[in-house]
């Protein structure tokens, strides 16, 4: 068991990535994630790696493409506007099936917006803000400890499925400090990436090509079918979520990341007031934990999605609940963070509405 260290979220990601075997980071400054590239700039040269400050987010994601194609564990990070710029690159990376980890410390939008925490990039992350049918695996930790564990998971998932993985945080998770423990890593010596462009001398007799172009539409369709099969496999095997007090809940809340913590604070108070509120906290936003919601829809009376956005995840909750029970929404935007009090008031409104109705 490792020692507990008090660390900023952004720096904790960096340290966790290094421990997961990542030696290369390509980034571009943007608030509120700067501590991550800065941490990498300090640490990576010490251990024979490199942090390259790219000329832009676009260059950064394409450097990641090259590096991932060459077979190493590689990371980039940014915040909302910078992530928008990476959409073409992400579509390419998904199309060429390259493993990498991308961090988005979401801030208020749209446009230049602001720099306070938000979750307005949910759709972009889960539906693919880029073009074509592709998926990112999206992980949304709620504490810094979980973020650290998530980083290891992210690299493993990326390699296992040859797919980009996004860690969706928010400004608060990046900036806050909490104790973390870096658990003993069982980094099974990374599986050989036989497909990587490491030069013919490393794989004689087989030319490796990293590519997403298929001029023949039937070939491109085949490739898409292959991708869809892979996504189905991920959806079947890699759903992660946490359930709290769902068994007896009248109202089941959906919330992820820091918002889920605020909901938990509100839930404690609610339970004290006798309101039976439970929480399903998706940890993978894609694949979305459909099944626990479907299950809960059998007995709970209502659902509520709490978000730092204007109503995005609520659609996934609706799709999962599939009309069985009403699904409500409560959200704050623009860097305003829901308060436990505000969330609690919404609980009361829904549950009292129910009692009256």
């Amino acid at each position, binding site marked *: 068991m490792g020692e507990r260290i008090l660390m900023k979220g952004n720096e904790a990601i960096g340290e966790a990535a290094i421990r997961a075997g990542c030696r290369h980071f390509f980034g571009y400054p943007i608030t509120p994630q700067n501590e991550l590239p800065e941490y990498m700039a300090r640490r990576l040269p010490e251990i024979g790696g490199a942090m*390259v400050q790219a000329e832009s987010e*676009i*260059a950064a994601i394409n450097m990641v493409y*090259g590096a991932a194609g060459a*077979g190493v564990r*590689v990371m980039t990070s940014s915040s909302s506007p910078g992530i928008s710029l990476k959409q073409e690159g992400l579509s390419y990376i998904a199309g060429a099936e390259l493993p990498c980890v991308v961090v988005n410390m979401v801030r208020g939008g749209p446009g230049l917006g602001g720099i306070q925490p938000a979750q307005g990039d949910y759709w972009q992350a889960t539906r693919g803000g880029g073009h074509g049918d592709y998926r990112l695996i999206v992980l949304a930790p709620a504490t810094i400890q979980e973020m650290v564990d998530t980083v290891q998971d992210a690299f493993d998932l990326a390699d296992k499925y040859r797919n980009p993985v996004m860690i969706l945080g928010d400004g608060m998770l990046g900036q806050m400090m909490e104790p973390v423990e870096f658990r003993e890593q069982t980094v099974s010596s990374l599986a050989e990436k036989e497909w990587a462009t490491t*030069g013919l001398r490393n794989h004689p007799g087989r030319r490796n*090509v990293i590519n997403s172009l298929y001029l023949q539409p039937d070939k491109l369709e085949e490739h898409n079918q292959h991708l869809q099969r892979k996504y189905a496999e991920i959806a079947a095997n890699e759903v992660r979520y946490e359930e709290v007090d769902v068994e007896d809940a009248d109202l089941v809340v959906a919330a992820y990341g820091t918002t889920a913590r605020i909901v938990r604070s509100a839930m404690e108070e609610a339970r004290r007031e006798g309101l039976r509120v439970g929480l399903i906290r998706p940890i993978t936003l894609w694949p979305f934990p459909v099944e626990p919601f479907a299950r809960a829809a059998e007995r709970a009376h209502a659902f509520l999605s709490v978000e730092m956005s204007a109503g995005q995840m609520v659609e996934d909750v609706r799709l999962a609940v599939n009309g069985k029970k009403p699904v409500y929404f409560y959200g704050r935007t623009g860097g305003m963070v829901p308060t436990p009090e505000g969330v609690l008031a919404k609980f009361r409104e829904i549950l009292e509405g129910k009692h009256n109705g």
Partner: protein
Amino acid sequence: MAKVFERPKALADVVTHYCPGCTHGIIHRLVAEAIDELGIVDRTVGVAPVGCAVLAYDYFECDMQEAAHGRAPAVCTGIKRVRPDLIVFSYQGDGDLASIGTAEIVHAAARGENITVIFVNNGIYGMTGGQMAPTTLVGHKTTTSPYGRDAKVQGHPVRISEMLATLEGPAYIERVSVHTPQLVNRAKQAIKRAFANQVEGKGFSLVEVLSTCPTNWGMTPVEALQRVANEMVPYYPLGVFKDIDAEGEDK
């Protein structure tokens, strides 16, 4: 009997998709010859652009990556930084390198990335059917400059070699052409040098090659070569624009 000329081994023995007489084919061959002569095919990774050379990944007998439009220098940077033992080159058109990819080429050059860039300047967007490029000559009619490029409206063509040569980063920049057999030889030397520099760790090397697009210029291949000589070379003078070795000698 001795072979005076034969197909280089690093060039895949397949029919290319290039139009008849398109000099992309010559330039491909020169790259392959350089790779052969330096004996580096088994540790070379090429990066293909988006442009007529998009299928270059089918034509070179080394590992390849296909980059997004304009981003090949960034992709090369990613590869080279994580595997410095590899020889990494990009092969890019003028739309790819001089337009959408301007930031990427300028900063790969400025950082002095130890990579090799083959820049094929045919003054047009070939792949997409003949639109104006930043390198299109003034007066030239293209599908997006149907009245001829007007310097007052569309500006003057960009000279990439001259521009990049103002940076401290690059080790070697030369502009060559392939419109005569003699110039093909000269181009070959330049391309080989650009690879050799990388092998020797000298840093960023770029060779700009003037090239034809008979199809979109609306000319026969032979006329197209003449146009290179008569119209392109006067605006795009051939020569070495940066050479740290020569500078070393000067000092």
